[in-house]
């Protein structure tokens, strides 16, 4: 197989797949390299009801359609791999993946999105799936008539806390600040629910148990006092971090490690573009990721055309 493409897109979420659709349709040879399952965060969403033109669809289904659409236009998609090294500064970009395959291209679009933030407390890894969950719709029913904790103070945390009261006998929301970041109606709904309690200005510092989670240590961030609480489950919704750790020192990032781009999705490196949740922006939605992916693809197309023109001039001399 030829390992050189006009454009390599890193990430097959909404932004990357959209870029793949636009580029391949414009006959720009395109490879998408993706670390996890194709679809990114869309796959984590049970129901998407605000994607225009589709009244209601599961995230998995929307991702599957986008993938098929991109492949139909000739886009090559490789998923479940790991990028081990990247050279982006040169005219010819070079990317190596974990099976030692090397791919080259004239342009790269970074669409690596974001992932759930973890607490980083002792025992968090050990009790994942054994009391700790990041998905209420997936695991809520394991906690029928049980006591659980929801960590976080944003829209997702409070919305999920309310939805988890369908199963749990009691939900305690733990939040590190003295106020919530969520919109007022989510706060009111949670506050008006008799099954929900709040522990403010606190964080979990340790998860404890044997085979499964049985208790947590909670620290008051103000007084530093630590208390232990018996609990059956903990759901964590403390926001997302951009997947840009392997770009540090290569592409310009802001203080939150988001990629800095201009309005045409151009980064500080010629021939390198970025789109979706990994860039510096305020609203992270499927629609905005799709829009970014479109702009990045069109900008990359233009760059490739210029690049090819330049190359043919050089060859003609």
């Amino acid at each position: 197989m030829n390992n050189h493409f006009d454009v390599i897109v890193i990430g097959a979420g909404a932004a990357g797949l959209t870029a793949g659709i636009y580029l391949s349709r414009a006959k720009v040879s395109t490879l998408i390299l993706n670390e996890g399952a194709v679809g990114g965060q869309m796959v984590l969403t049970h129901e998407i009801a605000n994607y225009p033109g589709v009244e209601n669809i599961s995230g998995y289904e929307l991702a599957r359609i986008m993938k098929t659409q991109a492949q139909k236009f000739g886009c090559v998609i490789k998923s479940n791999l790991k990028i081990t090294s990247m050279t982006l500064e040169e005219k010819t970009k070079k990317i190596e993946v974990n099976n030692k395959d090397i791919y080259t291209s004239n342009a790269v679009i970074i669409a690596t999105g974001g992932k759930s933030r973890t607490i980083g407390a002792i025992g968090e890894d050990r009790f994942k799936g054994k009391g700790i969950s990041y998905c209420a719709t997936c695991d809520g029913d394991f906690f029928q008539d049980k006591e659980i904790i929801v960590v976080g103070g944003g829209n997702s945390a409070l919305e999920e806390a309310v939805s988890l009261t369908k199963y749990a006998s009691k939900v305690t929301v733990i939040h590190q600040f003295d106020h919530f970041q969520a919109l007022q109606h989510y706060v009111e709904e949670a506050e008006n629910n008799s099954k929900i309690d709040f522990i403010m200005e606190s964080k979990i510092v340790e998860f404890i148990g044997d085979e499964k989670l049985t208790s947590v240590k909670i620290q008051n961030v103000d007084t530093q006092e630590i208390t232990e609480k018996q609990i059956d489950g903990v759901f964590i919704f403390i926001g997302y971090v951009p997947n840009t750790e392997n770009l540090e020192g290569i592409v310009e990032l802001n203080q939150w490690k988001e990629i800095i781009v201009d309005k045409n999705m151009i980064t500080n490196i010629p021939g390198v573009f970025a789109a979706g949740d990994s860039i510096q922006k305020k609203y992270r939605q499927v629609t905005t990721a799709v829009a970014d992916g479109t702009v990045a693809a069109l900008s990359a197309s233009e760059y490739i055309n210029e690049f090819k023109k330049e190359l043919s001039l050089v060859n003609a001399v």
Partner: protein
Amino acid sequence: MLRTNLTHVLSKDDHAKLLQENENVMICCGRMGPMCIPVYESMEELENEYTNIKFADMEFDTQDAEVIRNLPECSSFRGLPFVVYYKNGKVVKATSSIQSRDQITEILDENFEKVSV
């Protein structure tokens, strides 16, 4: 039935037959949800690499899935999917919740020898 390209285990009989006919088996018992789909996807890819392992799925919300749900190895599990690895009909490993392809590969390499085509 789960919408995957894996072998579907639809009943307790299917489950017993699968274990009887195959030395090495990996079954992912879940739903079409966010924590499960990435595991099925990894299994579909690994199926071509590990020809000596039978990769299958089973719908979590069926009565017969108690053959997995009620395994002692899964008693502490509180997250989908429940993934069980069998050698000669015996459970050699079980995991709860999402696992990456790398994590799955590590388990396969630890418990079964790799025989590729």
